[in-house]
């Protein structure tokens, strides 16, 4: 059997320590990695947020079982939900303000994204019938259950709105569906933050106060990006403003979240999650700037570039947050150190 974790260099993915350590002082010194990839900004001189962690563990084995979700399915699901929810808002606004060229891509975007997100969810579950199991009960303590109900309400509305727009029939039903989708859309975009936060995974749970806003902003930038890429400049004004506002909300609340989280914010600054989140920051900020510029210059190519940047920036954020959580579940430090500190503080 070659699926052993033991290699010549020792245990794969394990700390090199071989002993279970005892006592409060035992533990590994954390090495601060170099902060590469600052791209000539000369570094922002960010201070380490937490002191060096010292802790004991059982041979470096994780305390938590890591999420079994497949990144492409679930991070993709989070992303598509945000894209769909915020697109429905754009579609409704465009309908009210008489911008048919903005309404159509927004409605089609919402319908396409929500269909794909359902495909991703079912793929993660294994077979379609398993989705129906979610609707056996109604459980407010389970964000996944609540989300399933919200999706079951939202998806037909979003699909109906898109179908009416394409066929041009039953317009009254179409505007009702558009309005309904716009009411449920924000819930679709933000409940996924609760989905992640309602777990013991440190880097997801600790951010529960800000994460919904981060996801709301990220959903707004994605929807704005899609609309920008597909709408003539004359009608894309609201998308441009949504891009700017969404980027500000996403980036601002994400910084605030990292600032408040303490030790578990560390995984946002390491490895794959770090690369993804840096890319998300650059793409979202750059995309929003391009979006505003495209409005001034009335340049289609600029709008297309802005749309692509915003769409990929939003995706990078979801994948980054996902991977940061998985990394925090795999390392016992993020579970043990904050709990030990809490316990010590309580015992005085």
């Amino acid at each position, binding site marked *: 059997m070659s699926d052993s974790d033991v290699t010549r260099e020792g245990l794969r993915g394990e700390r090199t320590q071989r002993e279970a350590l005892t006592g409060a002082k035992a533990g590994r010194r954390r090495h601060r990695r170099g902060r590469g990839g600052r791209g000539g900004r000369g570094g922002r001189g960010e201070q380490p947020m937490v002191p060096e962690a010292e802790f004991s563990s059982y041979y470096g084995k994780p305390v938590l079982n890591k999420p079994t979700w497949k990144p492409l399915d679930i991070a993709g699901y989070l992303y598509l939900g945000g894209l769909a929810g915020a697109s429905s808002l754009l579609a409704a*606004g465009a309908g009210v303000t008489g911008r048919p060229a903005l309404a159509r891509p927004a409605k089609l975007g919402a319908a396409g994204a929500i269909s794909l997100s359902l495909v991703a969810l079912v793929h993660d579950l294994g077979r379609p019938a398993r989705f129906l199991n979610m609707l056996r009960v109604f459980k407010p303590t389970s964000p996944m259950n609540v989300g399933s109900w919200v999706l079951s309400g939202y998806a037909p509305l979003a699909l109906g709105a898109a179908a009416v727009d394409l066929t041009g029939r039953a317009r009254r039903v179409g505007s009702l569906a558009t309005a309904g989708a716009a009411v449920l859309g924000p819930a679709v975009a933000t409940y996924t933050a609760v989905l992640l936060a309602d777990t013991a995974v440190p880097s997801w749970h600790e951010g529960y106060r800000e994460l919904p806003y981060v996801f709301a902003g990220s959903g707004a930038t994605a929807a704005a990006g899609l609309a920008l890429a597909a709408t003539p400049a004359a009608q894309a004004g609201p998308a441009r403003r949504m891009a700017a506002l969404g980027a500000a909300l996403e980036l601002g609340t994400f910084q605030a979240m990292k600032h408040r989280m303490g030790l578990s914010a560390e995984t946002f600054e390491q490895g794959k999650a770090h690369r993804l989140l840096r890319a998300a920051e650059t793409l979202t900020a750059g995309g929003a700037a391009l979006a505003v510029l495209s409005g001034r210059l009335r340049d289609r190519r600029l709008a297309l570039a802005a749309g692509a940047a915003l769409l990929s920036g939003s995706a990078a954020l979801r994948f980054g947050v996902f991977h940061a959580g998985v990394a925090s579940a795999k390392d016992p430090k993020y579970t043990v150190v904050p709990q030990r500190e809490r316990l010590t503080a309580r015992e005085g």
Partner: protein
Amino acid sequence: MSGDQVRADRAGLWFGPQPDVAGASGYPDAPPRMGFFTDTSVCIGCKACEVACKEWNAVPEDGLELTGMSYDNTQGLGADTWRHVAFIEQRKPFGGQQPGVSHDDVDVFAAASALGTDAASPGPGATTPPAGAAPAGAPAGEISPVSPDGRTELRWLMASDVCKHCTHAACLDVCPTGALFRTEFGTVVVQEDVCNGCGYCVPACPYGVIDQRKDDGRVWKCTLCYDRLGVGMEPACAKSCPTESIQFGPLEELRERAAGRVAQLHASGVTDARLYGESPDDGVGGDGAFFLLLDEPEVYGLPPDPVVTTRDLPDMWRHAAMAAVSLGALAVASFARRPR
């Protein structure tokens, strides 16, 4: 009933003390809450509990791998390991917790060197060599496995870990299908025919117990042998434990017994002995399976202060609702005509 009282009652469903677990789940005439008390101070690491659990519950094998980290070849709890015996090797003297089987007066090296030359056993006449002198048979000047005071330098901690059957079980709370349920004995069980393999309970468990089985996608964990309990039998692991390290019974009774055992150990000088998961005031409302440990919980791979994630759930929904409203406001602002 005052407003505060209502709030406290409602909170009792999700976190905080909950004296009547089965009753709160809708069993009006429930039997007493059953649980495990695992006294790790007498665990000998035989893994009989792991084997008995696998045999009774027909849990598939999950690979016999030498991990290179210790004698522990199962590593942790998972879909196919419902009892896990941890082996912790420590450079720490024994304290005084050996049971009364001291053989300090027997010189095993003298006995070994005498093998084959003398038919008689060393008997009670064999003595420890004077301090500083190498025991017979051991090369002088090299490390002796026995420290001068006659005690081995290494101590082993062995502990059989299991699902905690929390008073407030995060796995049960987040399960979207109702596949996880509370039994009349106050334990937490997965219904395998309802579980749809979403895996949400896996990251929700603050102890890292429940896990997804790779080939069928569903989740599995200790059932506290629900099928045996129903007919008045004790769980397979407790039945097979040769040292009574795993004790099964009504939780109240186990708590009394555990308190007595801790007092006994403290009196005999084992001041490290402490109970883990026993207090109904902790972050999960107390565990249905609790432990007597001889070191900090994290040394055994247990979280020092776990909190059920649903404690913050009302707050999470509030923040999500506010974020949804913000998103709506953001959209309205995007469509608001701006003065040029």
